[in-house]
């Protein structure tokens, strides 16, 4: 039977297992939304306040579940508003399909109303993108989009569909099941043998893992490998939540604002085993200093990551879970008591340094106390989202994450305003509670999504670490720019509690731990969004810190 292109889109989405879309309608997708209306019992539709929020929601949906997130927007400004959301997903390897409408084929290229070349715009920030000008290719193009998004190293794919393709009629037959990803590459036996040999000969091995462990479902294997070879584990920001934070071998995030023990242990290692991580500049600091003392084994599903940022001594392309499993079989079970003892010393040293760096300031909440109090109310399954800045690093350092896919943060792109949309998406996907840790700067970027959270009754506790400044930039200005606080002091009079109420949410303000305790109780009993405005000192620092282009030699653990 012939059906419209719009209906083909909806039927293909359902065929591909998409149960929820995040969207914002407009003129060039009105036909598509008409079909979505008809299918509203088969596919959940969440209307955002702004297309960027919808893109972040699709991203949050994908990160929380591992499934492909879908966002739909109209042509022109609708499409360009997706750009930051797509780039965020691209940098963090999140599977996403973005569908945009466009003007009818005949009007393309004439600067028609709300026309933009979104395929051209998004080419460098998608894994691939398409414009479908022939309805006979529509269903298969969408299928390919899903296939690309979830294959290998995941990422976003955009499909642009002109209006006349949505209204044209064509034969459609649904496939019985979603597309399967392209075959994965498995690590070569020879190279793994070499890796095992290097590991067996190492005195101080250190495992550095990234987000690939989460998308590659390799948490158990990484832990088993770490235990077998008696190696401590550290991770990049994207790796957080892959391994329970209280695992004795886990030292936490390394790098610019990483844990002291994690960064120092890595530097003292003689072998770094990098798994599903890409040696981002934030994780390594100065690259010429970074790998001075150790050899590197680098295993990644994406061949283009090997030797991209760091020249590894042994680079292996392959599925991370399979590679880790085979390494476990190939390596010797071995205790390395001296190394372990050194790690324990570093942990103690870290605790002492953290305690010493902490200043008590009355009238302000300490960021770590905020994280501790909130986490005491949250469950292990609670989704933790963040925005970007100081609050993000404090959360990354302190929050006791236990399960993979519970931590949503914009690592690669560093997108302020990411978190609220992501939390909405993750809650819609899982039906679980969420906490958003944000700052007054980041929250201001996309707080309009509070409207979405209210309309969706999203059970999200929004914790604003409110210091009246753009804290991370201010921290740099304090340390490296002679306290020239250029454009980082807000002088705003925004009342976040009233703002929450204005949006139809609840809220409260806390300046002491007791006040925060009470609010947290109310927030976690609340069915919808609850805003907690936490008063934080503007000169609270994120520590430790490796200065930009610096290394562990320059680590700052305390500001006198």
């Amino acid at each position: 039977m012939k059906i419209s292109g719009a209906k083909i889109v909806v039927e293909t989405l359902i065929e591909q297992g998409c149960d929820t879309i995040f969207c914002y309608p407009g003129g060039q997708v009105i036909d598509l939304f008409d079909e979505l209306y008809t299918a509203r019992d088969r596919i959940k539709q969440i209307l955002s306040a702004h297309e960027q929020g919808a893109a972040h929601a699709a991203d949050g949906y994908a990160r929380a579940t591992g499934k492909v997130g879908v966002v739909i927007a109209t042509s022109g400004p609708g499409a360009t508003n997706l750009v930051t959301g797509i780039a965020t997903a691209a940098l963090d390897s999140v599977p996403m399909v973005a569908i945009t409408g466009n003007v009818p084929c005949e009007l393309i290229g004439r600067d028609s109303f709300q026309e933009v070349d979104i395929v051209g715009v998004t080419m460098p920030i998608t894994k691939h993108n398409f414009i479908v000008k022939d309805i006979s290719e529509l269903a298969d193009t969408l299928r390919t989009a899903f296939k690309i998004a979830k294959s290998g190293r995941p990422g976003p794919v955009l499909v642009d569909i002109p209006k006349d393709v949505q209204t044209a009629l064509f034969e459609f037959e649904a496939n019985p099941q979603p597309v399967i990803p392209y075959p994965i590459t498995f690590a070569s036996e020879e190279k793994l043998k070499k890796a095992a040999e290097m590991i067996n000969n190492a005195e101080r091995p250190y495992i550095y893992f990234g987000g690939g462990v989460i998308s590659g479902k390799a948490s158990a294997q990484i832990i088993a490998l770490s235990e077998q070879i008696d190696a401590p584990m550290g991770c990049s920001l994207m790796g957080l939540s892959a391994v329970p934070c209280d695992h004795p071998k886990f030292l936490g995030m390394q790098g610019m604002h990483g844990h002291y023990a994690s960064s120092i242990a890595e530097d003292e290692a003689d072998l770094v085993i990098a798994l599903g991580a890409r040696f981002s500049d934030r994780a390594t600091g100065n690259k010429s200093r970074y790998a001075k003392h150790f050899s590197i084994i680098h295993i990644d599903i994406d061949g283009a990551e090997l030797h991209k940022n760091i020249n590894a001594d042994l680079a292996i392309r392959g599925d991370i879970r399979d590679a880790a499993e085979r390494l476990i079989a190939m390596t010797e079970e071995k205790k390395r008591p001296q190394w372990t003892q050194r790690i324990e010393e570093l942990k103690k040293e870290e605790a002492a340094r953290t305690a010493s760096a902490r200043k008590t300031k009355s009238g302000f909440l300490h960021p770590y106390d905020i994280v501790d109090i909130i986490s005491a109310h949250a469950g292990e399954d609670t989704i933790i989202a963040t925005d970007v800045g100081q609050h993000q690093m404090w959360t990354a350092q302190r929050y006791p994450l236990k399960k993979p896919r519970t931590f949503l943060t914009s690592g690669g792109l560093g997108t302020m305003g990411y978190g609220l949309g992501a939390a909405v998406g993750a809650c819609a996907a899982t039906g679980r509670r969420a906490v958003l840790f944000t700052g007054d700067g980041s929250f201001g970027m996309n707080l309009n999504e509070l409207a979405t959270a209210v309309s969706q009754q999203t059970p999200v506790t929004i914790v604003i670490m409110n210091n009246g400044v753009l804290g991370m930039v201010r921290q740099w200005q304090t340390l490296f720019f002679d306290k020239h606080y250029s454009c980082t002091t807000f002088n705003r009079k925004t009342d976040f509690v009233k703002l929450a109420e204005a949006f139809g949410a609840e809220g409260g303000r806390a300046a002491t731990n007791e006040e925060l305790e009470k609010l947290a109780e109310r927030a976690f009993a609340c069915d919808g969004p609850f805003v907690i405005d936490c008063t934080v000192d503007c000169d609270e620092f994120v520590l430790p810190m490796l200065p930009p282009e610096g290394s562990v030699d320059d680590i700052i653990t305390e500001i006198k």
Partner: protein
Amino acid sequence: MDQYVIGVIVANVSGVLSRVSGMFTRRGFNIDSLTVGETESSGFSRITIAFHGDEDIKERILQQLQKLHDVREVEVLDSKDTVIRELLLIKVRNKTEIRQDIMTAVEIFRSKIVDYSPTALVCELTGETSKIDAFIQLLKPYGIMEMRRTGIVAIERGENCLKTVK
């Protein structure tokens, strides 16, 4: 820095040239020359790219190209086993006092004069890049009015073929 020549088989779809050239721009690699044309099978085009770089840059370029969905095959062409050609069209003044010199150069380089007017001559030359460069150098003192070079196309000697199916 060495020069590398790579052959890239791509799906013959709209936007593919943007994707390939855009990858070079985005990753900060420089292209010396790029040519694109049909292959023996209509669904695929072949792009020949020449660039300067070290082994490291070459590897990164190959890896990044292989990640592009429309790219089917990428291969570094070994200059010893590859026929490399470039086409030059060059226009010089047709003046009595230099005409004979130009004719001699044309003859020695096995170039051809493909347009002759009272004021200008157009020469055509095919060959490897070094030969084209030498010919241009030779004509420079006589005053080059305009020139076009195609960039290189290349094909391997013997039985080796760049496959067109991924």
